[in-house]
């Protein structure tokens, strides 16, 4: 098969321009909703917590909103496949399945992973300013210096463990978002709900199966039993990264082949 029939840069460029110009409003809405979500979450988390936040206090909120928003964001991939008519018009566009997949993946997964931390930093910092303005009577004086109780987020803590932790976080998020992304190719209606139910079902059945087998036959593998003692933190992170990468590859390959076989019924 010619490479041109899989990916062509000029054609991909046309597709990006064309799709962007006809869907920019929906994308703006999506990013607008995300912006509102981050800002409101930041404000609410401070409103609910009267204890003094330091820069580390933001981490649970950042990680929580990152995964929740990322999963939801990825579930808005391939909006054209939500109805039959748009599916037909889209499938007739002269681009390859790979180019379609790449465009959506870059826009809804990679774009999110890159922009979310920036957006979160800006919006949570703004939320800190807003909160401090409205609660200016809570100024704390430390060593003669006036200080507001809330401080903006710093990402140093998240990646303080070194590159491995960064790659683990990155790999895990790609894997999780890829599942949500692939669901939008497979399911026409309510892809997020159906993907969660499907993945949850598979995990439950798999876990249940192994628990039953190990329990029933009293299988005790010393390596598994002592895994926590035998595997170092670095090895654990490496295993997590490898598992996440494998899962992402399998999920994206599955999405690609489903896209190739997509019919307009």
């Amino acid at each position, binding site marked *: 098969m010619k490479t*041109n*029939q899989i990916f*062509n840069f000029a*054609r991909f460029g*046309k597709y990006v*321009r*064309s*799709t962007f*110009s*006809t*869907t920019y*409003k929906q994308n703006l809405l999506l990013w607008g909703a995300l912006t509102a979500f981050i800002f409101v979450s930041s404000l609410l988390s401070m409103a609910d917590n009267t204890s003094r936040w330091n820069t580390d206090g933001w981490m649970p909120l950042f990680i929580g909103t990152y995964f929740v928003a990322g999963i939801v964001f990825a579930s808005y991939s391939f909006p054209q496949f939500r*109805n*039959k*008519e*748009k599916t*037909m*018009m889209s*499938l*007739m*566009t*002269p*681009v*390859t*399945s790979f180019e379609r997949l790449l465009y959506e993946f870059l826009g809804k997964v990679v774009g999110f992973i890159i922009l979310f931390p920036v957006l979160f930093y800006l919006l949570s910092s703004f939320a800190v300013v807003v909160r401090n303005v409205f609660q200016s009577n809570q100024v704390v004086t430390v060593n003669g210096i006036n200080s507001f109780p809330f401080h903006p987020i710093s990402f140093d803590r998240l990646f303080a463990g070194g590159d491995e932790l960064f790659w683990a976080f990155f790999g895990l998020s790609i894997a999780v978002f890829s599942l949500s992304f692939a669901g939008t190719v497979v399911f026409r209606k309510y892809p997020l709900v159906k993907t969660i139910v499907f993945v949850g079902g598979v995990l439950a059945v798999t876990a249940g199966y192994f628990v039953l087998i190990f329990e029933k036959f009293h299988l005790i593998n010393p390596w598994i039993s002592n895994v926590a003692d035998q595997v170092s933190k670095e090895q654990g992170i490496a295993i997590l990264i490898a598992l996440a990468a494998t899962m992402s590859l399998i999920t994206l390959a599955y999405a690609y082949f489903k896209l190739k*076989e997509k*019919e*307009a*019924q």
Partner: protein
Amino acid sequence: MIEITNLSFHYGKQKNLFDGLSLSEKSGSIVGLLGKNGAGKSTLLKLITGLLEAPKDSLMVMGNVPFRRSPSLLEEIFFIPEEYDLPSVKISEYVKAQSLFYPRFDLLKLDQILVDFELDKSRRLTKLSYGQKKKFLIAFALSTNCKLLVLDEPTNGLDIPSKAIFRKVVAGSLSEDQLVIISTHQVKDVENLIDKIIVLDQGKVIFHQSLWEISEKYAFATATNLDGSENLYHEVAPGGFKVMKPANGAATDVDIELLFNAAISGVTLK
């Protein structure tokens, strides 16, 4: 351009919609695809355009398997489905975005057809009526200069003047290397436009001839009474009967509706 050999197709667990359907069509024609509701006209069009998967080796379009949807093939096919969903952008924006994909897109032709259809390029697609959207899509399809244009019920939703303009712009916009397939059950709308007729019934092509061949073989007339035994088919009409009979050298206009009814009622037409 289109080669269909022994095509069988069914949706899911339903019975076969097509069973051993064969068809061959070259460029340079406007083909009317006729059939009763549920005969499989739209399905056949979707198979031809690669929106549905046909069994292996049973369907080729311009030497390609359409379901592979290679961009080089899709650049040469434009399909207007019966139902469609257009983005909320202006006509001019849509044209700018979508014309990129069609190497022979003719903007002047589009402008002229839009004028014929009285459509303003500054209008937003979602604000257009169903018929106006269809007229825009017809204009866009013709302007792509694709080798294969597939139109599913193109005159649905068009008002009476627009139907006449539709016939005019389609007839005036095509070249010899193009093939147009028009699926319709409103045969009057495509009279004087199509030059070939394909009739689908019960999963098979039961009739496939050019209008020239039809007019050579058959004569269509109205009569106050049924006098001859040589009538192939007749229908009651106001004031008498519509009759189809062997031409025997007499040249008449082809009554497509009568021909279609004759074909699906089982009259043997050679």
